[in-house]
């Protein structure tokens, strides 16, 4: 369909189950946290998050 996919928020037990079941993730990027995946998605889209005004 033309969209890049990332899987994040994988719990330890889920990672174990995926390996034990022999599921092939293939080229899909996997990250443990949403923060990491979101940072990559931003970068790949050429976007950044900046502060609008200084913190007092």
């Amino acid at each position, binding site marked *: 369909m033309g969209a890049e996919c990332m899987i994040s928020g*994988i*719990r*330890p*037990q889920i*990672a*174990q189950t*995926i*390996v*034990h079941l022999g599921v092939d*993730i293939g080229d899909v*990027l*996997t*990250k*443990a*946290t949403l*923060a*990491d995946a979101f*940072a*990559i998605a*931003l*970068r*790949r889209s050429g976007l950044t998050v900046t502060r609008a005004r200084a913190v007092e």
Partner: protein
Amino acid sequence: MDRIPILKMGDCLLVTIQVDMHDRLALTLQDDLTDRIVRSRARGVLIDISSLEIVNSFIGRMLGNIAAMARILDAETVVVGMRPAVAITLVELGLSMPGVRTALSVEKGIGMLRSAQLQRESLNGSVER
């Protein structure tokens, strides 16, 4: 219940296997390690097997599993300290450990993890923390 200790060094986790692994110990290690990788957001796992004189297919499979689980959680695995006799046995038994990289020493292993991490960050971008 015995547990294999997991030490944190920067953003890498160090595991030293010194005792014979039986089923329950191996499963406990997998549980503890995956948990710790997520909690400490580790990017690398170093498994030191320099104390192991014998490695059988069970341990070979366990190391392969750990490497696969770690990769899903975005961490690379390096096995260090493999004894010559163990390397010979693994080859003769045809036990390739897919996805498991090896290094001769802890220092070299950490160097491998760092350069792998730099490579991933240049491809995917890094998180400023």
